[in-house]
C-alpha cells in the first residue's frame, strides 16, 4: 500500500507516543518511533524522515538538545516540538534555527493533521 512519507516521533511517554503514532499512521504516513533524544537522532540517520515531532522533556537528551544536534548534521530537518511545559527562551533559539512549530500537550488530533498537511503535504 502506498504511503505518503515517513515521520519520526520521539517521546518518552509511551501512551503519548502510541496515540500520536496511531493518528499519523491513520493519516497515511509511515511512522518511526523513538523513546529518547539519542534514539531519535539515530532513527533520523537511518530513515531520513520528512518531518519530526520531538517531545521537549525526554531522558538522556532534551528535545531542544536533540534538535540542535540534529540541525548541525541535517540542517534541512523539519522539526515540530511537543511540550507540556513551554520554555520560550529555548523555543526562540530553536525557532531562529528553523524549528517549525511548538505545540502544547494535550493537543488535538485535528491539530496534528493540520500540521502534517502543512509541513509535509501529499506528494
Amino acid at each position: 500500500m502506498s504511503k505518503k512519507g515517513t515521520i519520526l516521533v520521539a517521546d518518552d511517554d509511551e501512551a503519548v507516543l502510541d496515540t500520536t503514532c496511531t493518528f499519523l499512521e491513520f493519516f497515511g504516513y509511515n511512522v518511526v518511533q523513538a523513546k529518547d533524544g539519542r534514539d531519535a537522532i539515530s532513527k533520523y540517520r537511518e530513515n531520513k524522515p520528512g518531518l519530526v515531532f520531538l517531545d521537549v522533556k525526554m531522558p538522556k537528551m532534551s528535545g531542544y538538545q536533540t534538535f540542535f544536534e540534529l540541525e548541525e548534521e541535517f540542517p534541512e530537518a523539519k522539526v515540530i516540538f511537543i511540550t507540556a511545559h513551554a520554555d520560550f527562551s529555548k523555543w526562540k533559539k530553536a525557532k531562529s534555527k528553523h524549528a517549525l512549530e511548538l505545540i502544547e500537550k494535550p493537543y488535538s488530533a485535528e491539530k496534528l493533521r493540520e500540521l502534517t498537511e502543512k509541513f509535509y503535504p501529499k506528494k
Partner: protein
Amino acid sequence: MVILNMGKSQSMLSYKYYIRPQAHHLYGKFTSKSKHQENVQRSLRILALEGPMTTWEMAKVRFVTNNDKVRTKEKEYRRLLVGRTDRGVRSNGILDLNLVLVDSKTTKRNPGNKYRLSLYGILYCLDVMDFNEKEIDRIAKNYEVILPLVFGNWGLLKSTIGEHVYNISLLGKGLLFDNLHIIKIENIEFYELISYFNIKSNARTESFNEEKIGELISLWFFITLLYFPNLKRKMKNKDTQKYLRKVLKKNGELNEWFSSFIKEAKTFYKQRSKIVNEISIV
C-alpha cells in the same frame, strides 16, 4: 474451504502488546529480515494468498513440477509451522504463536493437516508484507468465512467506499486507539464509539473465540469509517457518518448488526451517566 475455529482466542490488546511484538521479534518486521524470517514470511504469504493448504500443497506453489524440490520444501514448511525438537531442545513453530491454525484434516492421498492463517495471522501479514490491492482482494476472498462482516462484504465495501476499504491493513499495526484519553478529538461520535469498542474488547477476554474476534475487528473497521483521514476537515457532524451510512444502507444485515452495537453503546453510556448523576457527595 475455511472452517471457523471455536477454540479460545486472545484479545485484541494481546495482539497489539504481545503477539505483534513477538511476531516482529521472531518472524521479522516490514524491513530487515534474516533468512529464517524471510522463509517464515514466504510461507505465511502463501497461506494468505492461496488460503488453507497442506504443507505439500504449499511447497507445490513454489515448485510446481519438481517433486524432489517439493519434498524438501514440504519438510521445511512443516518444520516452520509445527516447530521441531532437536536433541531434546524444542524450537517453537508459527502455530505456537497462533498466527497459523490447523484448519482441517485432508484425506486426499496422504492424510495430513490443512493449515490457514488465524485472524491475527492475517493482521500480522497485512502489517509486515507489502501486499498490493489485488493481493488484499485475494486474502479477503480466501478468508471471508472468518471475517464475514468485512471480507464477506468486500465487493460491496469496495464499490461504496473505494480504496478506503484497504484501511483494514492499519489494524495490523495495532492501531486500536486505546490511549485516546491523552489527545483531544473533535469527532465525538468516533471518540465515544471507539472508546466503547475498547471497553468491550477488553471485557470478557476469557470467552473470546475466532468468531468474537472477527466481530471486534469488524466493529473497528466500521467505527473507523467515522474518522476517515481523507474526509474533508471541518465537516458537519452528520457528514462524518456519510461513508458508514452509505455502506449500512446497502446491506440490511450489516445495518442490523451495527445498530445493535450502537444500542449497546447507548445503554452503556446511559447507565454510566445515571451513576454519575446520582453522585451526591456535595
